[in-house]
């Protein structure tokens, strides 16, 4: 039995509590192996062990707003601090379970996740849209539409990087353009990424946890199409309103006219290679090697190796001027690597507790979130303020715990129309996927490309709204009513 919480500050009690906790888990290890011991931990962990996880997510959410210089210079150390706050006591008091858990999340989630993001970022960073465009409502809507569908194949960060400069260039001479960029964040940097695991990090984490590659394509297509169509209609209406107020929006002078063309198109072939490697890893079962009881499958190692090779090929064959045109740098990917190292370590107790379902310390939460609509809004609201990848993983585990499934059963449970299908789980996972991806657009901090797009637009002279301005002028009036409608139609 785990000791009751007392009045000492929670962080002071963490090492002692973990000692007692892992003393218990070690006895379990003797009888059932590391995997079972790690699972058993979820039944005895108290809620406050997720404090480092909450701490790192809140740091990501709040520090760029309130202490931007400190955060810019020290975010890696902050991430390490939260990770060590959980990992050190864990390692000291039960190094076997700790090492297994950290290795498991590192080898199965973190490394493939970073390799995929690196690959997509590197390859899409070599694609440049050139030419002169005039930002009429029709041209803007077309650019947003292209970006929305591109996002599912190159990732939201990649699509944002490819499309933001053409959009800014097209609207350079317009006075009112902040709304164009805000709808760009809605559609290209978030909702567009919902159709494949390449599109948005949460969905790739789902893929790593046995959700079939094309399940989201079929599963969320109606929700995605409805949401994107409604938002595009709203965008066109708003853009026409502002366009009519433009008094001096000139035609492109003949000497400035240049045909629209895409440079670095061979990178699309490399992207196709990434898709193929991921698909192969999803369907081919080639066996595994075991590292400290963690099973690492050969097909996944091959997938990661192929993605790295394709990224290196892109770096080699893409001329530097194309990358310069995208202002390509390793900054964003280094940020992701450092921050997600901390996130993936601190998320360990949250995932374990939620996997324990009604036997875990978050049983009231598991019991309260009942319907797909609850999952849509719960995962969505949290994704609005915390990063959507860990939020997805948290609710994914919660749904597994609720229907008493293990990850190995996920493909069968999602095979709609078969005897093994689990309609409840299908409903939950559809809602979680849609909530985590769509509602990352609700704030600047919901998804990594949001801040990147805001920053690039501001440096191009766009008067982007503040954090709360974005919420009150754009996401609450436009996104929330659309999400309410989507809830009534689909969930």
């Amino acid at each position, binding site marked *: 039995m785990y000791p009751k919480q007392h009045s000492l500050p929670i962080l002071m009690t963490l090492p002692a509590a973990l000692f007692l906790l892992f003393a218990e888990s070690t006895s379990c290890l003797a009888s059932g192996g590391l995997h079972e011991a790690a699972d058993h931990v979820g039944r005895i962990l108290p809620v406050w062990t997720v404090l480092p996880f909450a701490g790192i997510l809140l740091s*990501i959410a709040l520090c*760029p707003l309130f202490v*931007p*210089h400190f*955060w*810019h*210079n020290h*975010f890696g150390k902050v991430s390490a601090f939260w990770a060590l706050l959980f990992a050190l006591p864990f390692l000291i008091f039960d190094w076997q379970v700790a090492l297994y858990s950290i290795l498991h999340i590192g080898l199965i989630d973190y490394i493939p996740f970073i390799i995929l993001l690196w690959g997509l970022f590197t390859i899409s960073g070599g694609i440049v849209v050139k030419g002169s465009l005039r930002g009429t409502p029709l041209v803007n809507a077309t650019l947003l539409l292209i970006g929305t569908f591109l996002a599912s194949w190159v990732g939201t*960060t990649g699509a944002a*990087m490819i499309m933001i400069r053409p959009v800014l260039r097209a609207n350079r001479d317009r*006075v*009112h*353009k*902040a709304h164009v960029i805000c709808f760009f964040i809605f559609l290209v940097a978030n909702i567009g990424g919902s159709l494949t695991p390449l599109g948005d990090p949460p969905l790739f984490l789902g893929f790593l946890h046995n959700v079939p590659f094309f399940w989201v394509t079929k599963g969320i297509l109606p929700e995605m199409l409805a949401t994107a169509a409604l938002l595009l209609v709203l965008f066109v209406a708003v853009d026409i309103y502002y366009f009519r107020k433009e*008094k*001096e929006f000139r035609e492109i002078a003949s000497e400035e006219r240049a045909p629209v063309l895409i440079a670095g198109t061979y990178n699309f072939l490399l992207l196709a290679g990434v898709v193929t490697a991921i698909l192969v890893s999803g369907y081919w079962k080639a066996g595994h090697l075991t590292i400290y009881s963690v099973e690492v499958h050969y097909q996944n190692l091959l997938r990661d190796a192929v993605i790295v090779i394709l990224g290196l090929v892109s770096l080699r064959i893409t001329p530097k001027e194309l990358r310069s045109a995208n*202002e*390509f*740098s390793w*900054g*964003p990917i280094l*940020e*992701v690597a450092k*921050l997600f190292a901390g996130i993936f370590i601190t998320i360990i107790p949250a995932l374990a507790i939620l996997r324990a379902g009604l036997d875990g310390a978050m049983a009231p939460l598991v019991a309260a979130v009942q319907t797909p609509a609850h999952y849509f809004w719960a995962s969505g609201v949290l994704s609005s303020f915390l990063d959507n990848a860990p939020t997805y993983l948290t609710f994914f585990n919660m749904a597994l715990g609720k229907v008493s499934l293990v990850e190995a059963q996920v493909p069968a449970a999602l095979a709609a129309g078969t005897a093994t299908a689990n309609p409840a789980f299908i409903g939950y996972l559809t809602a979680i996927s849609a909530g985590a991806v769509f509602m990352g657009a609700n704030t600047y901090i919901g998804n*990594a*490309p949001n*801040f*990147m797009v*805001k*920053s*690039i637009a*501001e*440096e*191009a*002279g*766009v*008067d982007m709204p503040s954090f709360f301005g974005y919420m009150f002028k754009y996401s609450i009036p436009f996104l929330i009513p659309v999400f309410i409608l989507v809830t009534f139609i689909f969930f």
Partner: protein
Amino acid sequence: MNPTYFEVTVEGSHDLLKGFVIGFLEGRGISGETFFGDEYELDEENPLQLLFRMMGNREESTTVIVEAELRSQLREALQRRKDSLPLKVVSVREVMGATFGFSVKTYSREVGRSLRDLFSSPPEGVAVEPPFSPEEKIDPDGKGVEAYAPLHEYEMRWKGRVSGAIRETFALYHKVGRFEVVKLGDLHLDYGERIL
């Protein structure tokens, strides 16, 4: 010497007045300058005024600023058509100049450069107070694209006030308004003594 301008306030449909004035100028071949209040936020209504107008308790009101000579011709023309046109001149006031406040915050070097060009050498007859000396910051840490820890390499902030002759101040107001990052304050007219 700067021409003398008058503010003519007319009750009645804004679109009708605008069409009438433009037609009048075209028909007579007059090239005099005319500034319509809606283009300079001079005809803004507060919500209460809007409500009263929608309830039919308040007439639409339009401001047009014209040179002295045109003022009398326009007034006479409106007087001649008063039976067929629901437009009524309610006041005519001499205008000596105009003033507006503004603030800028931008992270774009290009926009910063353009604003510097505009404000550091304002047109003759226009004063910018305080003289243009924006707060500019260069932060080498902010170079490049970032997702989770974005900083800006360049930042310009400034607040000021522009005042001066009608034509030049209005032109500057219009040019500055082309920049989304410039927050323009209300344009105020400085009235002369003559009320007609």
